[in-house]
């Protein structure tokens, strides 16, 4: 069965963001959301290294080493943007001024715990701004390019086993198979890949799922 591509997931996430929202996109897959803003809608993208109004990557020839995003890649600034220092930038995050923080994840637990910063191994640890974002943003959404890991292990679990990024912080999960709300009453599937049976999703999920009455079908659009 064809599942949602990363672009499909990004398109769906973008569609869920309210007009005029202030949004922080994590490094990697969440960056794709910027490319799928619906026509006529305006978000303000926040980059934690001191930029509001982040625009798309410039042509190589126009890249400015002074204008980069949190992933250290060249970007642009949109009209109405602003620059500020790191303490002010994280005041926006910690102070609850960011409407939505969109992050990748290794594991998300049924209570909203998130693990997305540390994997076992000899590499030195590195956390960046992930812990600030999940603690501070009004909404935290996690994008999973695949609902399960390469070895088939669920990423949506009863309890995280990897080091935590934050407690009970995730509000919604977008995977290639489903959209899942994290509620006080547990995980609620609001959208399910067209053709996938609820039991098939449950089989690939490490925590009990409920399915919303009005659960919508998700249609892959692009390869």
């Amino acid at each position, binding site marked *: 069965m064809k599942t949602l591509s990363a672009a499909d997931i990004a398109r769906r996430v973008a569609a869920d963001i309210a007009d005029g929202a202030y949004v922080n996109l994590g490094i990697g897959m969440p960056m794709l959301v910027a490319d799928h803003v619906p026509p006529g809608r305006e978000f303000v993208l926040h980059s934690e290294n001191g930029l509001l109004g982040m625009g798309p990557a410039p042509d190589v020839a126009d890249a400015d080493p002074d204008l980069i995003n949190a992933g250290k890649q060249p970007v642009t*600034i949109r009209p109405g943007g602003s620059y500020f220092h*790191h303490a002010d930038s994280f005041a926006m995050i910690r102070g609850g001024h960011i409407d939505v923080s969109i992050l990748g994840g290794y594991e998300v637990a049924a209570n909203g715990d998130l693990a997305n910063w540390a994997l076992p191994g000899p590499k*030195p640890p590195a956390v960046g*701004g992930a812990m600030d974002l999940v603690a501070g943003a009004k909404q935290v959404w996690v994008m999973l390019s695949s609902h399960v890991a390469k070895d088939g292990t669920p990423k949506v679990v009863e309890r995280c086993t990897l*080091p935590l990024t934050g407690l009970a912080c995730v509000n919604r999960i977008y995977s290639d198979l489903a959209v899942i709300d994290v509620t006080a009453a547990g995980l609620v599937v609001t959208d399910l890949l067209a053709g996938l049976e609820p039991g098939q999703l449950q089989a690939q999920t490490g925590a009990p799922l409920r399915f919303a009455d009005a659960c919508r079908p998700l249609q892959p659009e692009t390869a």
Partner: protein
Amino acid sequence: MIDKRFESVAALLDGVADLHDGATVLVGGFGDAGVPERLIAGLCALGLRDLTVVSNNAGAGEHGLAALLAAGCVGRMVCSFPRSAGSVVFEELYAAGKVALEIVPQGTLAERIRAGGAGVPAFYTATAYGTPLAEGKESREFDGRGYVLEHAIRADVALVHAATADRWGNLTYAKTARNFNPVMAMAARTTLAEVRELVPMVDPEVVVTPGIFVHRVVEVGR
């Protein structure tokens, strides 16, 4: 007459009493943007030992912080994200146990430095509550939510990179090369600034770092 300008990096670094073995040094920059490369190179040439360096990243390639690390000047790094494309020098020293690492969430790092500059010895933040990075730290509830007590970071010296400066040490920055530089400038006993261009006077409405925080400046071009 107040005049904080120096003719060269070497002249600027000469006689800075706060630069000594074991000193804590704040180094501005995020990725390659706003890194005080010339001051780091000058610091490297001083051959100090056992420095604690506070900086978001831990250098890449063989220049900047990577050179300072490779020269054996650094005993301890305080970073949010020491890994990056090309952070080979740091990773090898870390693997060999030759440099200690304190990992701090990026916003907590910025706020701890800002607190150091603002005379706040400690503050509470929800960031990292319940995670391994809060282990061993005091925690406390306010209005039913858990927070961690974080302590200010103050340093002996801050190295910052700015766009313009005047003789009073007022600074402006360029785009996202601003990043950690203004908060670090506040939090050291001696703040040294390399700037792209010296100007007669920065417009008082657009000063980002007022001269009160800056002790010496040197023009280094782009």
